[in-house]
């Protein structure tokens, strides 16, 4: 089942990437990133059948980071929305200074 899992992982990852590239809604882009993380998790888990449970440990780390990221990221989106009344990425270019 390893090959299938990896293929699925690649497909999901790519879908996430295409989502990030095509959508402008910050929240949906964010969710696409979560999808990409999940795709990676799937690879970890699939490969942990071969190499031992360490892969699963990493999945747990990834999840933690994802959780933290979601919290902070969404907080940022809220802050931006308050400021700009929009979550459209085209309207957000604060980084430009």
């Amino acid at each position, binding site marked *: 089942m390893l090959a299938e899992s990896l293929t699925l992982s690649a497909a999901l990852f790519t879908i996430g990437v295409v989502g990030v590239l095509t959508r402008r809604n910050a929240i949906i882009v964010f*969710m696409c990133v979560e999808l990409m993380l999940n795709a990676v998790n799937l690879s970890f888990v699939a490969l942990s059948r071969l190499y031992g449970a360490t892969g699963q440990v990493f999945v747990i780390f990834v999840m933690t*980071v*994802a959780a933290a990221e979601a919290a902070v990221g969404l907080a940022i989106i809220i802050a931006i929305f308050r400021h700009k009344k929009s979550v459209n990425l085209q309207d957000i270019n604060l980084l430009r200074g």
Partner: protein
Amino acid sequence: MQNEFLPLFYTFHFYLFGLIALVGAIVFVTRKSPVAAALWLVVVMFALAALYVMLDAQFVGMMQILVYAGAIMVVFLFVVMLLNLGHPSDLNDMRGKLGRLLAGLVGLALVAELMALTRSEVTMKLVVPPVENAAAGTAGIIGPIAGPLFKEYLLAFELTSVLLLVAIIGAVVLAKKRSN
């Protein structure tokens, strides 16, 4: 694994959940409404959780449901509701045709490369002899994960707690309403 029906049963369900995940993902990306997208993502999460269980990572599967579907996605939905992102103008957030075409091409290139890599010789070379899973029986499901987590990766584990703390504080500070 001794049961000979099991592989078929197993295989069938593996493909089934795989298909669900794939279709769910495609539908998720194409939804205009954030709420619908989020719900479809939850579907993907669940399908993935099932796959984790089938890949002998039962603990991770549970975590997937609890943390991702249960916590993270709820937060997403919560934010979507909070910000009331239902206006038609916001809904049409797709890029132009050219953008989509390019994104598709890049996606194809990416998937092709990923596939090539998964089948390339490099990955084959990376294969090390599988560790014997003899202890799996006695240590149960949690043991093999808990072992490395609290031994080799103890520092990293402790650091994640710090990370989470920072994230909490950060989220509070960022989302707080400015008094002025």
